[in-house]
């Protein structure tokens, strides 16, 4: 599914990712953990095509398709979804309008018919119910005045409606209390399927108790410095990043 080889990314001419390699096969959930400033969000942005996150070497492909050559919307239409660490506020655009506009733009790009209003509303109602989001909130401008936790739920709602093939969750657990974390994790787990993969970026092991990964990778100083099974998250939680990052350095 996702294959990254020796990826190098600079931000404002400063190299941040320095030769990152990673393979996430179809149906698997991989976690990326690492200290603050390691480059985790940079990886998500570079894969999604954010201006200013300049790939300077290496490759990233989704099912063989070169992501780095595509516009951000083409990457989305190819099935990539980035859940933002800090979701943006969109004044004046009701959440429902925003998501439906995005969905129909993807459908057009995929050569599929647009989603009708009743069809879309039905799906939105179901997803909101599952995520315990008050439906009326979806009529308000997206994320404007929403709490941190509400914004994260809105990200998961968008995933549920857009049905991407590859998800990157950037710190989707931050700002959530334990009840909200469960709801969000249930929402994400509901999307797990043999033909969908995920990259779960997190600072803490806590989220990985709910979204149990197949593999855990440690990102430090722009590279993957260690990989292992789910138990690696517990080791990191117990020992901190210093030893493992220190050994790799």
């Amino acid at each position, binding site marked *: 599914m996702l294959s990254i080889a020796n990826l190098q990314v600079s931000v404002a001419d400063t190299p941040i990712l320095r030769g990152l390699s990673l393979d996430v096969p179809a149906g698997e959930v991989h976690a990326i953990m690492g200290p603050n400033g390691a480059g985790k969000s940079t990886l998500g942005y570079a894969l999604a*095509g954010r201006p200013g996150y300049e790939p300077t070497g290496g490759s990233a492909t989704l099912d063989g398709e070169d992501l780095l050559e595509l516009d951000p919307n083409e990457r989305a239409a190819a099935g990539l979804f980035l859940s933002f660490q800090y979701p943006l506020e*969109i004044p004046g655009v009701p959440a429902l309008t*925003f998501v439906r506009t995005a969905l129909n733009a993807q459908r057009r790009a995929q050569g599929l018919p647009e989603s009708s209003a009743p069809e879309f509303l039905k799906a939105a109602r179901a997803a909101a119910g599952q995520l315990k989001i008050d439906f009326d909130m979806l009529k308000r401008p997206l994320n404007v005045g929403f709490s941190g936790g509400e914004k994260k739920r809105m990200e998961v709602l968008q995933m549920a409606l*857009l049905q991407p093939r590859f998800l990157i969750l950037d710190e989707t657990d931050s700002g959530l209390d334990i009840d909200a974390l469960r709801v969000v994790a249930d929402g994400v787990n509901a999307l797990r399927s043999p033909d969908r993969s995920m990259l779960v970026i997190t600072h803490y092991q806590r989220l990985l108790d709910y979204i149990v990964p197949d593999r855990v990778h440690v990102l430090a100083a722009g590279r993957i410095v260690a990989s292992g099974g789910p138990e690696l998250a517990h080791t990191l939680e117990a020992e901190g990043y210093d030893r493992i990052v220190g050994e790799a350095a």
Partner: protein
Amino acid sequence: MSLHPNPLQFAAGLTRGAPLPSRRHEAWKYSDLLRVLRELPPGSPAAEPSGQGPFAGLADLALVFVNGRGPEAATLGGVTAVRFISDATGTAHESRLRLRVPEGVSATLLESYEGHGSAYFANTLLEIALEPGARLERIVLADEPETAVSVSTADVRLSTGASYAQTVLTSGARLQRLETHVRHPGAGAAVRLDGVYVLAGARHADLTTAVDHEGETGTTSQLTKGAVRDTARGVFQGRITVRKGADGTDARMGHHALILSDRAEVDAKPELEIWADDVSCAHGNTVGSLDQDALFYARARGMDEATAKALLTEAFLGEVLDRMEHDGARELARAWLQERLQ
């Protein structure tokens, strides 16, 4: 901005051989009429009205002007459409209309500028009087050919306790100026003065307003927003004068514009002139580009650049439409906006 003390007299001069204003006139420095017109074209011939106009079906009564020919005066009540139709090529015409809203009456005016043909000069003069306690919502929709030159001047006079609300929607023309003067007596009278311009190609729109607070405790709330792309040019000139003795006036003016391409331009001149005490006045003016982070967020969710820009621009401008009171006209304005942003 030194506007003429008698705006309709000045406007009448434009089609009666007075020297055309150029950028040397301070009030016209962003909208050089002389440069686009050179000299006054010959008079437009009579023509038949065509179509039903953008507000078809929303009004109880329609007053129709074609190439300057139409009724002289009307008394408003209920919903009235006024259509200023230009069907002319290379000629000029002047339309003049006097409107009155009687004491205590609430009325809606749906005013359209419709153009067929090309390179005409349309000069429109409106005199609008609101009697004590009268209410008027004036909605102006101007869609004219890119070669047209069009100037509309409205002189609005409010009596005590009257309320006047205006929303001007325009897509510009070669040069188009929609100018509104409001004489505000204070004394419980209220004014809302809004505008939206959406300009593409080489179009030019100029929204000029002057509100004169002459008495105590009047309110004015003004919000104009615009979006310009290609080599289009938007002009906003807003002046609020609070005369000596107009104490307790509350006046707010906002103008905010988005520039969507490198070669588009917006010129803004907000002015507050305050000669009274204990007034609450504020103005805000911003001209910028779309929020790049929001744009990336929308694109990362699958919107192509044009769709994402249109959605964010529509949301930006939509704030003005939300303030419209007439439901049918507001829906129509929304559809108009969406079409203009495609």
